[in-house]
């Protein structure tokens, strides 16, 4: 080791921060995009200085050693995901990039306040819609037909209570940064957002691989997620459950691609991981079958989609669900989280109304802006978009995971023509958005750093209060130039370090 690790080097006022870092950053090119680490003139942003210095000093051998450490750590933790259609028994490790993404505390305060505001409004909206007076429709804020035509809308959820305005108990909105570095909400995930297990496991790996780097910065811990989630779930228990409600995680089973996460969450909370066949409903009371007989269940954190939850009211072919569950929930004997029918609020055509919903329910201005969105059912907006299909992104309103997206500039004339036809045939089913440049972040690729586009999925819990987990899943588009970060589309991830206020690297050096 040549450099003394104990020094606070790298960001003392005496250092010339404009020196282009060496080694792994040779030839690094931010490509005209907003870069998370480097300013436009190549200066390292203050909150990244210590990390850049550490990486610049790494020898190839040392780097290889850390890569090995990471892979080993992921294998021993058993963090794998199954790829559908591959040989059974084959499980892959999830690719985590070694360079963490850092979010300074002032930026985080904005994100936190913005997400809490957004989720509160969305919860109020869903509450109004399903158990309230539907004031939002009466007042004409959102057209009635738009709600009832949403594929996520569930008439069966009318009158099904969730205590504490917490229909979105866990939500995960995707944030992107545009070319100015402004954080914008790209979409909301209010049904079954997944990925929190990677947030926790990435952090566990980083503390093994780069323990020293944490010492340079004051990084907020994410390890208490399990107890945060359990607290929130216990908070929404039906009043009759008393002081010690029984919480379970409901999974579709081992063949689900997110099963690892279901196991992980049940373990973190110390509750049972059940399948539909473990639960029975009798007299509108849900119980699980144990070796000591039936045990009453009060809160179900379900990771099964609405359609498969209860064959009595939804898909009658489903054997994953629990017959009678909706009736028990309606009777107020069990709370289902996230609530049934939340999909109506993350419908991308309804997403466009969220800023209005925030104003309507909270009387506040939205803190985090949306991405500019065009509603294609609207004749004028549709006409304008069809004129410039090659400049915008077109998305189906109900898909997640990056499926069905058409990125105008990258699409061929034939593809654009297909999209045009689809829009004309079913305009309600599509939206168009302006293309967001998506900020980039240095990402390790064959022994050097290259710029790759990233986004951020923070997780928001609604319990006694609305809380944002200080961190999140930073997803990376591993292919050069790609704007699609979804894991199902070949994405990777980064550990996300939120710096706590007061402690961070704030010795301003103007570049």
């Amino acid at each position, binding site marked *: 080791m040549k450099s003394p690790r104990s020094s606070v080097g790298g960001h003392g006022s005496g250092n010339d921060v404009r020196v282009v870092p060496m080694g792994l950053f040779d030839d690094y090119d931010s490509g005209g995009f907003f870069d998370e680490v480097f300013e436009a003139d190549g200066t390292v942003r203050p909150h990244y200085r210590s990390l850049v210095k550490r990486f610049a000093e790494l020898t190839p051998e040392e780097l290889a050693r850390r890569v090995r450490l990471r892979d080993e750590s992921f294998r021993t933790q058993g963090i794998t995901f199954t790829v559908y259609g591959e040989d059974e028994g084959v499980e892959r490790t999830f690719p985590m990039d070694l360079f963490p993404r850092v979010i300074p505390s002032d930026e985080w305060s904005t994100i936190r306040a913005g997400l809490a505001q957004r989720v509160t409004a969305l919860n109020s909206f869903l509450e109004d819609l399903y158990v309230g007076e539907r004031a939002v429709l009466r007042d004409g804020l959102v057209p009635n037909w738009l709600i009832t035509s949403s594929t996520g809308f569930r008439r069966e959820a009318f009158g099904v209570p969730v205590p504490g305005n917490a229909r979105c108990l866990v939500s995960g909105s995707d944030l992107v940064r545009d070319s100015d570095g402004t954080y914008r909400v790209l979409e909301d995930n209010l049904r079954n957002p997944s990925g929190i297990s990677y947030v926790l496991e990435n952090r566990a790996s980083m503390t093994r691989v780069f323990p020293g780097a944490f010492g340079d910065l004051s990084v907020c811990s994410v390890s208490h997620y399990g107890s945060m989630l359990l607290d929130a779930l216990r908070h929404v228990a039906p009043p009759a459950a008393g002081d010690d409600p029984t919480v379970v995680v409901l999974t579709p*089973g081992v063949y689900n691609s997110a099963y690892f996460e279901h196991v992980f969450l049940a373990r973190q909370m110390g509750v049972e991981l*059940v399948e539909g066949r473990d639960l029975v409903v009798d007299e509108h009371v849900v119980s699980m*079958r144990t070796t000591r007989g039936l045990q009453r269940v009060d809160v179900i954190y379900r990771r099964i989609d609405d359609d498969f939850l209860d064959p009595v009211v939804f898909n009658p072919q489903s054997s994953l669900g629990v017959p009678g569950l909706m009736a028990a929930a309606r009777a107020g004997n069990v709370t289902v989280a996230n609530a049934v029918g939340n999909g109506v609020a993350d419908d991308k055509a309804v997403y466009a109304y969220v800023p209005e919903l925030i104003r309507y329910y909270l009387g506040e201005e939205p803190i985090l802006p949306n991405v500019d969105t065009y509603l294609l059912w609207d004749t004028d907006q549709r006409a304008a978009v069809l004129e410039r299909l090659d400049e915008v992104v077109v998305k189906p309103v109900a898909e997640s995971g990056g499926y069905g997206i058409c990125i105008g500039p990258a699409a061929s004339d034939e593809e654009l023509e297909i999209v045009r036809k689809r829009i004309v045939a079913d305009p309600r089913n599509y939206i168009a958005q302006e293309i967001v440049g998506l900020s980039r972040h240095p990402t390790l690729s064959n022994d050097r750093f290259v710029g790759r586009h990233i986004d951020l999925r923070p997780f928001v819990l609604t319990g006694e209060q609305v809380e944002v987990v200080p961190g999140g899943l930073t997803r990376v588009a591993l292919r050069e130039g790609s704007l699609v970060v979804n894991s199902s589309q070949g994405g990777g991830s980064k550990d996300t370090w939120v710096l706590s206020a007061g402690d961070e690297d704030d010795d301003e050096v103007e570049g």
Partner: protein
Amino acid sequence: MLARHAESLFWTGRYIERAESTARMLDVTYHGLLEASQHEAEPAWRELLSVLRLDREFVARGGGASAASVGSFLVLDEENGGSIISAVERARDNVRSVRELVPTELWEALNTFYLDLRSRNLRRDLEQQPYDLYQMVKQRCQLIAGVANETMPREDGWRFLQVGWMLERAEMSCRLLEVRYASHETSIDFHHWQSTLRSASALQAYRKTHRSSQDPSDVVGFLLLSRTFPRSVLFSLRRAEVELSRLRGADAPMTRPERLLGRLRADLEYTDVRDISISGLHGFLDRLQHSVRQVAEAVALQYFRNSQELALTALDFRPPG
């Protein structure tokens, strides 16, 4: 614990023991027949199938019973639920569904065993080196037993695994005796009994107890009633009984499976092997297996399917077919 998890562990134990015992029975039959003529061999293989209660399935496939046809039926036939490959696959599926409850090493031992079986050319192994193949199956099952023993906490999960394992072993040890008895009814030569003992890994232990006794009832007595040999029927039932009693709270009343098993175990303990004539052995073993199955059914009723749930599933809304 969840009833489904308990049931999965119970069946994991059963299937691993089934794979191991099936390998042992194939081994003893195969080697016992090496010097036999064709017309002796065919009935012996048929008898093995009937002892395993798989004779009807085999007949449905057509073709004669030979070392090759019965061997492949019992080792690698995936259509046959009683084959070794099926048993290992089912054990693996069961552990997979409770992966969060079992030590990683246990899952890995079983998964590797399964993947190894899948990647081998089992048909060629059967033709060229059946001994090695059966040896490998036995050793891998013993490895899994050892890993479970060294890594699982002595909690309910362990107990259900053991109860399933030991009830299956009790039944299969009866069958091992049946194979020998049936295939050499007319000429019970002591070297055949020796190979039975060897296939149960019991020859050394037998010699220590009975020296050079060549009395078949000593062999039967040893495999049925030994209090010290881990594969004897009595020993297996006693282990199952201990684990069953630990599943129940100390103050709770005795459960039905415990009562059935306790009675069965006591009956065996008070049995004098001289009272079982070799000609009456078949009926004795049959009754014994029947009683073991009743215990297993009582375990299922007690722990895996409680009465309230039974009442609910009895309401079948779907038309048949």
